[in-house]
């Protein structure tokens, strides 16, 4: 029996973050929007839920993109808290947006209290090569430092959009499967050494119950 058969609901919350104007919401819209659906209504419950297939496994992703609420600075904590994986987006045509990533990651680690939280870095607007302000080498070095994959994507041409999200899913799945270190014994919820494992267990909860 495959080892994931006991985890019937593989569902992850993914948060998309990035400075304003980097087109992160375009990425989200591209990813969750079936292009053959005539009209996109973002006010319904499933607007940001989508299903992806990662290495033959089905994963439901709920994307949290707080586009439009960038000015509600204090809300970011709340948003980040609900994420299990993060897509950090900058625009290759904006150095400032790239520099903001560092702070975002610090916040994520602070809020999630987890150094290994799955992150994927996305350099958006890859179609605007002539306006590039962040060279690839820089981005890749950040990618190596954080051990987080880096994608250059374009929401406009739908390049690497699915790939970036899929890679994040893959990370989340790997983390969930994890090196199986035996059944997690009952541990005090606040024992920090068990925190990471606990987080993993929590995902096995069926989200609709």
């Amino acid at each position: 029996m495959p080892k994931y058969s006991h985890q019937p609901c593989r569902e992850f919350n993914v948060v998309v973050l990035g400075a304003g104007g980097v087109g992160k919401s375009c990425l989200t819209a591209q990813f969750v929007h079936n292009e053959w659906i005539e009209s996109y209504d973002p006010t319904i419950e499933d607007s940001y839920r989508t299903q992806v297939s990662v290495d033959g496994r089905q994963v439901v992703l709920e994307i949290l993109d707080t586009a439009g609420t960038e000015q509600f600075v204090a809300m970011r904590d709340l948003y980040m808290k609900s994420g299990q994986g993060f897509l950090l987006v900058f625009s290759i045509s904006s150095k400032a947006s790239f520099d903001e990533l560092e702070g975002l990651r610090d916040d994520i680690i602070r809020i999630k209290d987890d150094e290994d939280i799955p992150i994927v870095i996305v350099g958006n607007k890859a179609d605007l090569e002539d306006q590039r302000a962040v060279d690839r080498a820089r981005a890749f070095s950040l990618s190596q430092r954080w051990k987080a994959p880096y994608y250059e994507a374009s929401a406009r041409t739908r390049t690497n959009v699915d790939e970036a999200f899929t890679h994040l899913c893959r990370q989340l799945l790997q983390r969930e499967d994890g090196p199986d270190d035996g059944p997690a014994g009952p541990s005090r919820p606040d024992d920090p050494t068990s925190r990471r494992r606990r987080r993993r267990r929590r995902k096995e909860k069926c989200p609709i119950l």
Partner: protein
Amino acid sequence: MLNEKGMRSSLQVAPLSIHKTRSASSLAASADTVDSQITPPATPNEPQDNYVTSIANPVFHNFLRALYPFHPDYVASESTVTLPLSAGDIVLVHSIHTNGWADGTQLADGSRGWLPTNYCAAYNPEEMSCLLKALLNFWDLMRSTTLNDSEIFGNQEFMKGIIAGVRYLLERADCLTKESPLLQRNDRLRRSRKSLLSELTSLVKTSKRLQDAQRMPDNNDDDGINEMVDDMILKAFRIITKGVDFLDLLEEDRSMRLPTLTIVTTVPEETAIPPTPPADAVASLDPQQQCSAAAETRIAEHEHLSRPASFAPDNAAVGPEPRNDRLSAGYLQEGAETRRLSQNSLRQTNRLSSTISHRVSLAGIPSSARPHNLVSERLNTCHDVFLSHLGSFIGRLQLHAHSRPSLAVAVRQSATSGGDLLVVVDVVCAHSPIGIEAVEQARAAMYQQIRDLVSAARDVLNSAEPGMEDEAIVPHDNGRLLCAATGCVKATGESVAKTRLLIERIGDFEYDFGTGSLGILAEDFGLSDLGDVPEERPEHRRADLASIAESTVSETPTASTATSVTDSAETRSRSVSVDKPLPDLPRPDSPAVEERPQSPPDASSASAVSSVSSLRPDLPPLPKISTTSLPADDYDPAHPSATQEDAEYSSFRSETLTATSAGSARTYLSRDSESSLPSQTSTRATTPDATQAPKTQPSLSSLSSSQAPTEDDEIETKLLEKTYVHELVFNKEGQMTGGTLPALVERLTAHGSTPDALFVSTFYLTFRLFCTPVSLTEALIHRFDYVGDAPHVAAPVRLRTYNVFKGWLESHWRDESDREALPLIRDFAEHKLAAVLPGPGQRLLELADKVSVADGTLVPRLVSSMAKTAASVTLAPADAPLPSPSITRSQTNALTSWKNGGSPPSVLDFDPLEIARQLTLMQMTIFCSITPDELLGAKWTKDKTGTETPNVKAMSTFSTSLTNMVVETILQHDEVKKRAVAIKAWIKIANQCSLLHNYDALTAIVCALTAASIQRLKMTWDLVSVKRKEMLKSLEAIVHVSSNYKALRAHLHDRVPPCLPFVGMFLTDLTFVDIGNPATKTTSTGLTVINFDKHMRTAKCIAELLRFQIPYRLAEVQDLQDLLSAQMEQAQEKEKAVANAQAAQFRKSKMLEPGDVQLQQLRTPLDGPSGGMFSWMRSGNASNAPANQI
């Protein structure tokens, strides 16, 4: 013998083999682009790669035209209903079965039945495109079950499209006026035009009668109305046939004028075919049916077929066909059908199934008596069955009432019915190569869930000790089963929803699922381990899954995906498509009878290979090119694979006409109003200038035509009205979703009915997003001008045009952007408008002068137009006393002393209710000043300085400062107890905010209390009572972002003001409406129109926000508000002082309670002395709260 010159290209094609010119890579977005019609290869000799690319994107043809007569005269089974065709007949197609038979309605007489698609060609000449599209809209609207009749008939919207379609046809033919030289010259053309117009007149009259009938207050005569609707549909059909006649004559006329052309063709009118209601529409067509004797005289070579208008001489040669006895025997009186032709008697709300259901010509067969052959019905049924099994399973689990045997039975039932459902999903997937990825994924998830359920059940059963089989399941196991079962429900829901979407997309279709449960998948789910379920299907299913995986993984090239899907589809569907072969095309000398390749028993071989070559051996059976009977083995109900059928590969077989045309392909599917057939010759369907319509002086000959009945004249006048109605786009619910600017402006100034309020307010609010003020002005002036051609409506329309200007200048003027249109408006007012309507001209001129100097709008915008009226009614009466503030004497004194320079009292000393009230009053003041303009085009995200969107900015600033203040009033205390007191107080305040329905403040406070810097204060939280923590938890649930603010939306839905919604949610909605919907859309005729649907959505969001702009009736305590402002301001300044306020708070938090976190996340050292940072807060006297209250 035929000259091909001058013929319409749409007739120059073999049946359903339309030439494809686009590359495969561009197919994805080409559904409604002109050149993308994709069909089977036109000739068998085409190279294979051409074949491959051509299958990727099927186009469903809404209309077919018979090329050959089809009058089956063999004795077929009683249950078969075929539709006799004469060459030249036009058929409206509802769905096309996998075997190439189409379910269609003959427009000549409205009869419905099955017809062989290989006898027909797609029909959509450019001249007719508007009319045909209008008929589809008309048909959809008439059949609509979601709208009530009065809504439909109240405005005569549905008529406009038909009239515009006729106008378009005549305009293209240069026959708009009676005086057209063409009509003068060709008498038959003139008569045809006249007959077309009188048909139109008759339809208009009926629709007016219907409107009147609807208006009668106590009209319960449903039958009468249904009759009228049926009558109208038939009339609309006749308009089409007359239009086709007219166009044929026109073609003839055109070709006659070519010197070399000598042939004269006629299209005999076939009007008197009695309806042939199928006795059973879903019954199989008899496989042995052969084409009629007429076929023998035909020579149907491919070259012949591809010739234009070849049906005409053929038809002349063939003559009338003997009628099939069976058909007339099966004929039932139309009168017996009391149900409306167009509407489902059950008034189903499921539009999809009602759209495609085969009700129309079914003479009184109750829908319940029909098997569920439509795939959508089958989907619904299977879903219901599956859910009911799961539901009872879950219900019993919760009652702990499962014994082991009953568990096994229940799981088996569930899994089996789930398997049935999967079969349906597969069928749908196999049906179409487009857009199936999402469905395949959902399907795989659902499959996995069912497996999980079965394996959970198996584990539970296997873990039982011997001899304990009858014991009840222990509760521990119950949990797992429950989780698995609910997982199934969820995954199934998604899978079904996606499948339904796909069906919507590709159209519904027939599929014979055989009888009873298909019972497959059993062994895949491991059901056999549960006991007595025999292994049913060893190999096939796995192969199937493999192919699904394959098609899911290979996402990149469209062609290859399509191919692999095709493979699996074919594997799954082979036997059904062999059941009912199409009749042979009439052809006496058949070169060869080609044996159909027998399907290999092992289906996996085909599904595993996605190469093109594998397609050939596995093609669905080819039609025989012979007139001999089909071999008996072509149809075998007991064919072993029939039970394995889990998919359907539906295709028009490429019925090319030579024996070597082995290539099968797919095209078409079922009708979707959006995917219609682009015309080959279509260009931008703009209405030519009015000048193009020749306006000759009345001649002598026109005097004779003036003897036409007056009603015809009325129609004539109507036709002369220039209109842009055909440039509007409607969805299936009859709502306008797009249009060109002239068309939208025409709608804005329609003369017949008052413009829809929502449309008008949306237009005013959003027009700057889709046109410039100058182009709007020009469009309005154009409207003012061209309506002059129709004198009888000119006056009201011109007045409306003036009113649009007036409303714009009075209430919606934005001087900075609109100023450039002012000279144009002035000029218009002064010259054109004043010349016709002097008074309004003068007033408009005055307005134009005023707006250029006025600050702000001249007349306040009508709030009622933004859906505010309902809310304001419920306001408390203005004279009701305000609730008195809950504030004590000493608190008032403390505030006064603070005002006089004393130390500020702690916010937390006040009654939580009063704090919540004052916060709410402060926020509501800002909220009420938000203007709709601030919310357009995601402006606030681009507005860094806050000058353009000051109030949106103020809302977010308030919210952020409130959060910061809350955090700091907690962190300012070094003592654990005092921090706990502060937390408790804020939970109470948050609760009061929630009771006041102030969700903005609630969000801000919850945000603070759940921030990392507060949440980590374990020692502090230990002192907060469980009750308070629970309260916080429930408050958090209200504003939680999960499932797209599901809980918050539920709270806001139908909430009666006063209420302060969380603005951030609206901002996100507006952003995504803006980003997720394209600015324009392309119609089936290749016209690019404004996506008005997007702007309607924007307006809807904004209206929902404005709905809450109604102040609370609460007493202001100015001093307390000042205190709150001052403290928030301080918090805000602090935020500005440090780069990252949250990080600073977190550092403070760590100092207070270092905790045992080993990770050292903080890179930067604490800035500033720790005590100093928060000292401002300490000056308060929060410490006098006794600790035992916590």
